[in-house]
């Protein structure tokens, strides 16, 4: 067999189990011919001329010329392979690719690490005060002011979300404006009724003048109310105070009379002189009665009942009246 025939039928000599009768002759030729022997070894895959980098470069260039990079196809299966849920064939294909593709190898490693990292992010504990703040905001341990503020805020939030809120707000503002400045058709205060209104500045000046009038009227009214109520009340209080002083004085004098007469009365009784004891008691009683008769505010005296003594202090100052009574007490 010659080299041309050997090369032409090379595919027949690759399979060692092929039952071709000329196979023996072909193998003898390959054993004797270095070139054909090397060719047969390459065809059988028993030799490889490409180094790892050269193989990678060749593979890429072939893929670029045909289907493009296989990385996108590998990425679609990468997650399942990392999770261990991929089929055996897919896992094998991914493994082949990862052997030579550093980028996908890095991606697979990152995916594997992220699995644990992400599960660690499931819970992040907030600061220790968080639970207390949540409980305050929910189970009602809030202060009254915060509850009111929260309720007011919630109410206001509901109001402004109502569709009619804008219309109602505009109406309220327009009404307020009209009350403050008045519509143009109303008569002004200075020019009188039936006449045209003035500018907003004039309306403000009229408003200020009206307020001044009103405040002076309020002041006069307040003063009149004071004269009608507070002054009589103060005078009445003073009279009550004077009455109390007077009553206590008369009671004190009564007690002194009783003390003063108790001794003589007891002595007369001891001596057996009942007539003297009776005289003493009569004198003490008369003395006490005299003091109470001279008290114009003594209990039992009606308003319309005239006092037993002329009350020269009527219509005078209460302090003067008190002094007059004191002078009468001091007289024998």
């Amino acid at each position, binding site marked *: 067999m010659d080299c041309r025939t050997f090369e032409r039928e090379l595919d027949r000599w690759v399979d060692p189990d092929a039952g071709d009768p000329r196979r023996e002759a072909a193998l003898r030729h390959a054993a004797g011919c270095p070139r054909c022997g090397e060719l047969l070894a390459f065809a059988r895959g028993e030799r490889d001329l490409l180094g790892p980098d050269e193989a990678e470069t060749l593979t890429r260039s072939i893929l670029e010329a045909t289907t493009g990079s296989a990385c996108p196809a590998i*990425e*679609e299966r*990468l*997650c*399942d392979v990392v999770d261990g849920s991929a089929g055996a064939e897919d896992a094998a294909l991914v493994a082949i690719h990862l052997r030579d593709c550093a980028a996908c190898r*890095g*991606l697979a490693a*990152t*995916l594997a690490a*992220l*699995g644990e*990292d*992400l*599960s*660690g*992010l*499931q*819970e*992040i*504990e*907030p*600061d220790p005060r*968080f*639970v207390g*703040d*949540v*409980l305050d*905001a*929910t*189970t009602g341990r809030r202060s009254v002011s915060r509850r009111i503020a929260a309720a007011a805020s919630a109410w206001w939030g509901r109001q402004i979300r109502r569709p009619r809120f804008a219309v109602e707000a505009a109406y309220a503002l327009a009404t307020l404006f009209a009350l403050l400045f008045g519509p143009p058709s109303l008569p002004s205060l200075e020019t009188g009724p039936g006449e045209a209104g003035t500018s907003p500045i004039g309306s403000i000046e009229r408003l200020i003048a009206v307020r001044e009038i009103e405040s002076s009227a309020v002041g006069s009214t307040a003063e009149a109310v004071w004269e009608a109520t507070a002054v009589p009340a103060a005078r009445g209080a003073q009279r009550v105070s004077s009455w109390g002083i007077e009553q206590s004085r008369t009671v004190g004098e009564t007690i002194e009379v009783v003390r003063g007469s108790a001794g003589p009365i007891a002595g007369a009784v001891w001596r057996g002189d009942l007539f003297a004891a009776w005289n003493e008691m009569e004198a003490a009683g008369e003395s006490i009665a005299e003091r109470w008769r001279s008290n114009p505010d003594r209990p039992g005296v009606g308003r319309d009942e005239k006092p037993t003594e002329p009350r020269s202090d009527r219509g005078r100052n209460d302090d003067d009246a008190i002094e007059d009574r004191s002078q009468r007490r001091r007289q024998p």
Partner: protein
Amino acid sequence: MRMMETKTLLERCRRGDEAAWEALVRRFQGRIYGIAYCYVGNPEEARDLAQDIFVRLYDRLDACTNDETFVPWLIRLARNACIDRIRRMRARPRPAGVPVDEMFDLPAPGPDPEDQRRITARRELIHRALRRLSAISREIILLREIQGLSLEEIAGTLEIPIGTVKSRTNRARIELAREVTALARPEEKEGV
């Protein structure tokens, strides 16, 4: 001490048991705060939002008709509150000079300070990467990968088909992995 089942806690809460309510708050505060933080990315805002979520839960305890599915229901409630808050935040102009992605210390377990620092840094990196995702990818990651909801529960929450959830989940994970890798590279160069 045997932990009371969530179903029992819920029943007691509906009867006005304040101790049960406190226990429920403590059980889920970490999860709710974590969800809020994933959405708003700011610890103070997340705290306020988490509190708002619990107030909503308190007002709507009777709305959860099936206690067996309380956790997905709660997460849906939280998600709706987070979305509402984000809409309001977007309507509010941010004050100048305040960084949107400002990170504060997130509490991390680990007795070793070096471990704690490493875990905290890792969490911050992941949160930064999450905020760079699209809104739907971030939600998918949050519901599926972080909170562990099933595909059916996520489909019900987001109102999308289950097949879409599955495909979007893988896509979102790849997207997140790429963002984490991209963010990690400058830090590796800086020796962080």
